[in-house]
């Protein structure tokens, strides 16, 4: 069981590497924020797995809850920031048909 959990944790970490590449090469800033958001969610999951490996899930699960909530707040704040700064460039409501 320990080996399976260890393997799952390592697989989870290895699959974060393409997402980290997306953080580095992402053409726009929001691409990077999305990738950070995905990595944050997976870190919350990884914390539970680490807790199970250390035989101390009851402590690590609190960290995971806090991490997930803070991750959501972080992506929310970032998207708010982008929403607020850009309309100064004179694009009207985003509901308007683009290119017409």
């Amino acid at each position, binding site marked *: 069981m320990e080996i399976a959990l260890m393997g799952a944790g390592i697989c989870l970490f290895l699959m974060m590497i393409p997402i980290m590449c997306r953080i580095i090469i992402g053409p726009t800033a929001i691409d990077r924020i999305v990738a950070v958001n995905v990595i944050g969610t997976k870190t919350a999951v990884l914390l539970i797995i680490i807790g199970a490996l250390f035989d101390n899930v009851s402590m690590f*699960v609190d960290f995971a809850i806090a991490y*997930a909530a803070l991750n*959501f707040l972080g992506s929310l704040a970032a998207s708010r920031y982008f929403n607020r700064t*850009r309309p100064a460039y004179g694009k009207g409501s*985003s509901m308007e048909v683009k290119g017409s």
Partner: protein
Amino acid sequence: MDDILNGLSIILIFSGLIFFMGASVGLMRFPDFYTRMHAAGKGDTLSTILITAGMAAQVLSHFDLVNLFVAIKIIAIAVLIMLTSPTSTHLLMKAGYDDGIDPVTSSGKGGIIDLGGPFIKRIQSDDGESKVKKKSSSKKKSATRKNSV
């Protein structure tokens, strides 16, 4: 009983890893920002739910009161992420759309296609003239756009 729960947890965790692999490869390969959001939003949610469910089964295999609370907390994480992940996807996508990132579309550059709606007739009869006019004009637009395809 313990063996059943352990086996179930391993199956759940590894199916979650497979779906997460789909999400990460999709995040790498999809052509533009909006389609990448599809991979991120969906793959993230299901893989998190599956892995946390697997961990909850794993914790419950040594059953006592403390472990029961821990399992409920782990399920609470899954519910939290199931509620918040689509919201953050939606908000980031809206931010990108307001930011002016052009979507790669198959029908011309950045056009919106009007589907109308299942209740459009009822809404028209409720709201009177103005909405009807607005709707017909936008329908014309979408018709021309579809012709240009």
